[in-house]
């Protein structure tokens, strides 16, 4: 049976085979994991269990439980002074991933262009194309992995509809200060673009305060803000995210969502509502732990000769492996085979990231120390 041209032409991830290799091997120390190594804090898990005991097993409103939307309204208001109405400006989604798909399908007319700074999370390009848009990538490798206003300005033309920003960034851990964001927002406003802002790692910002894009002057009306519970509350498997934005866009997204997803599982929503109530302390603890690991990992990597900047957020470092003379995929394969350490080749996140690898420090200190020892071993051999 022939599948659709659109899907047929979607780029399969070039490193699928490498992933399979990792999954098939035993006793590997993996620094290739894109999720927290913490288990969801107990109070949140308990809320999920309790909701089942109470018999909450039905559908919820398409937009999500009102209790959760109200909780998010309050959370964003008190944390960032960001005011989204729980009635029609917040939509609960199956992780940020679903939200991104919804927003792109809601906004894109055939041929519209979406700007995506690279290296970037793997889904942005394919989901844009699937929605009928075309992805325009901006290489940020020469600017410390940050999008500059100049390069953004240059990439914009009449067909440009919007931009996907992601900060702190997966895979580089890079984030932006308020000033830098303001400069970007000026360009975005000038050209009347939509900013699709994936801030799922926002709570994991270490060196300065995280600034949500819609809090920038004049930016709320043309921003759709995405966040979720996965990274900050260690809830990846629960699949709960949310989108906040202008009424008309949220209404459009809700239409697609009601036909395709209906609603996010109620158990997950109940647990997420609890996370907003009691999750603050465990989140702070996790954040402190990540920050300590970051210091150790960055320091050690630079010492053993894998040069990297200190990332400001998330739980990734993105060191250069250029001095080894190996390509990203080759390096990762050899490291896996010879030292049983798994990392993700930079090229998974864009061709421009050749010569880099992504290391996740969402792994116990014990594992990190051992892995770094092995990487050092590996570098000394080659």
């Amino acid at each position: 049976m022939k599948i659709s041209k659109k899907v047929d032409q979607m780029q399969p991830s070039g490193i699928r085979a490498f992933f399979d290799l990792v999954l098939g091997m035993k006793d590997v120390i993996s620094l290739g994991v894109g999720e927290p190594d913490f288990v969801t804090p107990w109070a949140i898990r308990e809320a999920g269990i309790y909701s089942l005991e109470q018999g909450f097993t039905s559908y919820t409103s398409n937009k999500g439980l009102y209790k959760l939307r109200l909780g998010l309204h309050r959370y964003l208001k008190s944390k960032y002074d960001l005011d989204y109405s729980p009635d029609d400006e917040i939509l609960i989604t199956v992780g940020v991933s679903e939200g991104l798909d919804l927003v792109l399908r809601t906004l894109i007319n055939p041929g519209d262009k979406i700007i995506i700074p690279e290296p970037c999370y793997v889904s942005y390009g394919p989901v844009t194309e699937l929605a009928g848009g075309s992805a325009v990538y901006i290489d940020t490798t020469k600017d410390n992995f940050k999008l500059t206003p100049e390069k953004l300005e240059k990439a914009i033309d009449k067909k440009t509809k919007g931009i996907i920003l992601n900060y702190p960034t997966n895979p580089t851990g890079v984030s932006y200060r308020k000033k830098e964001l303001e400069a970007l927002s000026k360009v975005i406003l000038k050209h009347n673009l939509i900013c699709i802002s994936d801030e799922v790692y926002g709570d994991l910002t270490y060196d300065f305060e995280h600034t949500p894009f819609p809090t920038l002057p004049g930016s709320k009306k043309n921003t759709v803000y995405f966040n979720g519970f996965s990274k900050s509350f260690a809830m990846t498997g629960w699949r709960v995210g949310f989108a906040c934005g202008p009424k008309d866009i949220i209404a459009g997204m809700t239409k697609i969502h009601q036909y395709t997803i209906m609603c996010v599982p109620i158990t997950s929503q109940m647990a997420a509502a609890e996370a907003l109530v009691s999750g603050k302390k465990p989140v702070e603890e996790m954040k402190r732990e990540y920050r300590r690991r970051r210091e150790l990992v960055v320091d050690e990597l630079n010492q053993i000769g894998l040069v990297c900047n200190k990332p400001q957020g998330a739980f990734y470092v993105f060191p250069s492996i250029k001095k080894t003379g190996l390509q990203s995929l080759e390096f990762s394969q050899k490291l896996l085979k010879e030292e049983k350490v798994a990392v993700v080749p930079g090229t998974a996140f864009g061709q421009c990231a050749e010569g880099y690898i992504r290391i996740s420090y969402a792994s116990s200190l014990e594992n990190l120390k051992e892995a770094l020892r092995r990487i050092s071993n590996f570098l000394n051999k080659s």
Partner: protein
Amino acid sequence: MEEILEILEKDGRATPEEIAKMLKKKPQEIKSAIKKYEKEGVILKYKAVVNRDLVRNEDAGLRALIEVNIIPQKDAGFDKIAERIYSFPEVSSCYLISGTYDLLVIVEGKNIHTVSSFVAEKLSCLENVRGTTTHFLLKKYKEDGVILKHKEENKRIAISY
């Protein structure tokens, strides 16, 4: 510097050099902070948390929690009699608590006989001890913040975006 304690409570074997890196301090600063904690008794000792259930030998031992009612002594209150009790090597922990009894004494013994003879022949005979209630520990689920289970398998998939 409280974060040093947070790190050491999780991993008593973390070296000053590692801690220094994690907290962006000089190793010497960490070393002297730890020394200070040790001197002040904030850090009392470093030990392994052992899951005795997995050590299947006869010396694995038995633990009992004993509620002790005491008559406080003139001048010294509870402290003097508490000292007489906690000085026994069989006593591993001793707490003064509020409620229906006064001291909670945790005793470790080789088997039920050693524990009961300690209670009957030593503890109950002390003149200020009014009465005791002994609870033998049947199973340990969690100790010192550590859940006692077989090493958990990794539940995350080994690689993901």
